[in-house]
């Protein structure tokens, strides 16, 4: 194991099998790329990008600054300026937001909206491929239902981006997808956050044990860890076989165009391949055959290459410590633990490992591994220099992540742990953006970031405050009382829907959601 570590680290620098596709003349098969995110230019055709000046709100940037009163200038899909008394460009639309508060769009690292769509019908249970403990080859994007009415409610709570994860029945649940809550999309691909990396959902502890204990196993935490080790080991070997293949293929290509050497001149490379246990080429000059593509291994190998971010459902401190050790052994990073009710016990280790913790404000006790949850979790993590995130894992909680952050912030302060408003806001904006690998694009109100933002009726940490407007990439997607998008599912169910004389609901943006 120790000997392999440098090799694994080396592999992380080598382009993966995906890179094969770039070789122009090769016929080598290419493992399928994750469905490419469509480049969705927002409101920027060829003409000038429309400008909007949001004027006079309290502005909480989640980047260290809180203005009592400032302006935010949007151009196209971007924020171009933030500060007090900005000069309005002549062609800018001016929106007066006096008395309101502006924050970045809220980001949730943990949701199952769309893969467990409402209503909670048996037909809608698409979040747990609970047929085997390792289903790393499945993808949430293949089940995400853009007509889930829960999406509308999350948006009305100020959510602009969320990570949709497979459930936690399996050690390896599958790939996650990060989506924007833009209304009116007709496919998961359209909902994807452009350029966001994929995630891998892993699960520790009770759930895999419970689901597989009476079946194939794992039946214990020992079995869980054996399952992770096995998968990372196999993925390392899978990686190696592709690396070897690529090297051989490159050499073959280089030789192909050279004049044919004398027939009896043995080739060193062929002998090496034989020593490695691979079938020796029958005849010099044959094109090396690519290893078989395995979608599950491809996912885990993506983690080893640093391309796929690990999101690890894990409650107990000791289990998180085991996972950090496992990650160090195989040379990958755990981007964020999720739920992590014990994270405060190992906040120093999390800080040192650069692993975030996505936690609830106050959930605890529903299972043995969550029995030690405390409300100061996020505050203690922040104090220790670890990256804290407040997540929801709930279609109800996601509608008020601002309130959950407020709860955790005040719990910390009451216990004498200093937490600033800006830090608490980061728990639901900048920090989740980092955990999802999109922090260069969103998560703060700063020039150059996407115009993902929320206009609140007041201080977002008050229980009485509601989101009044939501912008996603510069597009106004929600206005309380007048622009409240509704999915197809809900058409016909609101009072008065069926009493209209003509087809009233041709667009997804008609009518209020209560």
């Amino acid at each position, binding site marked *: 194991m120790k000997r392999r570590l440098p090799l694994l680290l080396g592999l992380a620098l080598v382009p993966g099998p995906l890179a094969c596709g770039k070789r122009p003349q090769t016929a080598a098969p290419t493992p399928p790329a994750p469905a490419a995110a469509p480049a969705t230019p927002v409101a920027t055709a060829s003409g000038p990008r429309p400008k909007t000046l949001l004027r006079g709100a309290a502005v909480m940037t989640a980047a260290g600054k809180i203005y009592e009163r400032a302006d935010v200038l949007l151009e196209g899909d971007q924020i171009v300026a933030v500060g007090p008394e900005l000069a309005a460009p002549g062609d800018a639309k001016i929106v007066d937001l006096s008395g309101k508060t502006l924050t970045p769009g809220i980001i949730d690292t943990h949701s199952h909206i769309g893969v467990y769509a*409402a*209503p*909670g*019908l048996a037909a809608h249970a698409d979040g747990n491929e609970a047929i085997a403990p390792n289903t790393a080859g499945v993808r949430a994007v293949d089940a995400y239902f853009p007509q889930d*009415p*829960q999406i509308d*409610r999350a948006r009305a709570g100020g959510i602009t981006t969320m990570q949709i994860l497979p459930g936690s029945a399996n050690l390896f649940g599958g790939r996650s997808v990060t989506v924007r809550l833009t209304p009116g999309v007709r496919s998961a691909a359209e909902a994807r956050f452009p350029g966001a990396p994929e995630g891998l959902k892993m699960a520790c502890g*009770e759930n895999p044990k*419970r689901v597989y204990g009476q079946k194939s196993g794992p039946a214990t935490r020992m079995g869980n860890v054996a399952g992770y080790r096995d998968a990372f080991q196999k993925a390392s070997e899978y990686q190696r076989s592709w690396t070897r293949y690529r090297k051989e293929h490159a050499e073959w290509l280089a030789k192909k165009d050279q004049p044919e050497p004398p027939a009896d001149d043995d080739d060193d490379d062929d002998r090496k391949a034989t020593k490695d246990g691979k079938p020796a080429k029958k005849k010099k000059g044959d094109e090396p055959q690519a290893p078989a593509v395995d979608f599950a291994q491809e996912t885990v190998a993506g983690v080893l290459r640093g391309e796929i971010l690990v999101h690890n459902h894990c409650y107990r401190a000791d289990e998180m410590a085991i996972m950090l050790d496992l990650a160090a052994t195989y040379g990958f990073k755990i981007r964020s633990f999720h739920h992590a009710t014990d994270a*405060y*016990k*190992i*906040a*120093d*280790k999390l800080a040192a490992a650069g692993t975030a913790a996505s936690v609830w404000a*106050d*959930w*605890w*006790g*529903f*299972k*043995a591994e969550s*029995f*030690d*949850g*405390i*409300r*100061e979790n996020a505050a*203690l993590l922040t104090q*220790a220099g670890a990256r804290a995130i407040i997540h929801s894992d709930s*279609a*109800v909680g996601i*509608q*008020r992540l601002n*309130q959950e952050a*407020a*709860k955790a*912030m*005040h719990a910390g302060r*009451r*216990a004498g742990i200093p937490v600033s408003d800006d830090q608490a806001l980061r728990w639901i904006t900048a920090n989740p953006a980092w955990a999802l690998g999109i922090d260069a694009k969103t998560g703060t109100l700063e020039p150059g970031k996407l115009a993902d933002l929320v206009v609140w009726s007041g201080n977002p*940490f*008050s*229980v*009485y*405050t*509601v989101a009044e407007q939501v912008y996603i990439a510069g597009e106004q997607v929600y206005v309380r009382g007048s622009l409240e998008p509704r999915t197809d*599912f*809900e058409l016909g*169910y609101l009072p008065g829907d069926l009493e209209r004389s003509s087809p009233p609901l041709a667009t997804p943006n008609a009518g209020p959601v*209560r």
Partner: protein
Amino acid sequence: MSIPYSRLCSALAWGLTCALMSAPVAAAPAPTAAPTPERAGPVYLVGGELHVGDGTVIKDAVIAMDGGLFTIVGGPEARAKLLDESMAVDLKGKLITPGLFAAETQLGIVEIDLEGSTRDDSRASEHPVRAAYEAAAALNAESALIPIQAIDGVTSAAVVPTGGLISGQVAIIDLVYGDHRRLAAQPRAAISAHLGQAHAGSRAATLAKLREVLGDARGYPARRAAYDRAQSRELSAHPQDLEALQPIFKQQAVLTLSADRASDILAALDLARDFNLKIAIVGGAEAWKVADELARARVPVILEATLNIPGGFDSMGARLDNAALLHRAGVTVALLAPGGTHNLRSLPQGAGIAVAHGLPWEAALTAITLAPARAYGVERTHGSVSVGKVANLVVWSGDPFEFSSAPTEVYVRGVKLRGTTRQNLLRDRYRDLKQFSRKDK
């Protein structure tokens, strides 16, 4: 002291033992970790702004508690009634409310949801009628959950059995940690039953079965002797369960009916009318659709303020202003804690969310104090700050619904809570991680 012993006993009614009055209760040594009740001696609070719980507000209030009950409640003029004003605690500038009342909980009968060995909320039985099952008999006064809720102002809870068609007897408890003998204030306040597809996979079957059981139960006292002689036809439930249902026919106990769909709620109203029952609706996702009928029938609704997801075809009409619409129509609305039994402390958050969606502030306070007491039929002893009621009270650092506020003092049965919680002990153990770092290597 201020009111005669006998009156106290009748006011305390049912479960609250009058022994409480007899001199200092020899408190069993309780774990130091938990808020420990002291003796319920006289306590005077003056000068605070009292939100009584019934919608009224008393500025510069005078409150006296003694023997576990409120003995004086009034404005500044009531100061004259205090025996020794020098004992009074000045709460000038502070906001005072009744202790919060958590509806529909499993507090003290479930410790960890997913661990069956810690659950006593349900009688494992094939039979759907379990009316005799008593939550009170299973209560654990040393549940770690109790101090965690109490320290945040929750002083009473309805502890409700689950499962089956008729789940059993609802106990009303006051959150006196560690006091097994006196945790239950009223062990049989209500009986919990369910509509919708609770029985035989069909709401029609559910209703038919409920009517059959209620019919048999109502007729049971007259048939008891015949039954004992085996001269009765077969009855739809065990005699114990039929006996347990008797108080609902005298309206001495409430029948709570869980129902979300508007049609189910109407069916509940019909059932109540036909059997002359005092009922409360639990759930009520679509209650706003039949608000006027609920108001006319004076049937309270116990609901969750955050419920706006069409989680099933029974709750397609779920909306955030459900509470506000019902209140406007004159329905008694009680709010559930959004966080469930482990987080009953989130009751104020639920109230604040209801306010943000149209419920008046005082009505929201009533919805987490007096209204749940009414819904379970214990408003004579619980739910508001008034003379003769159990002295459950909270002093707040600010607006109780705001996250920035917290209780500064909590009184349960007239005794100020002290001590801490298991969660606080965990927090303090891991506050400084340096002490653990040597073990890393």
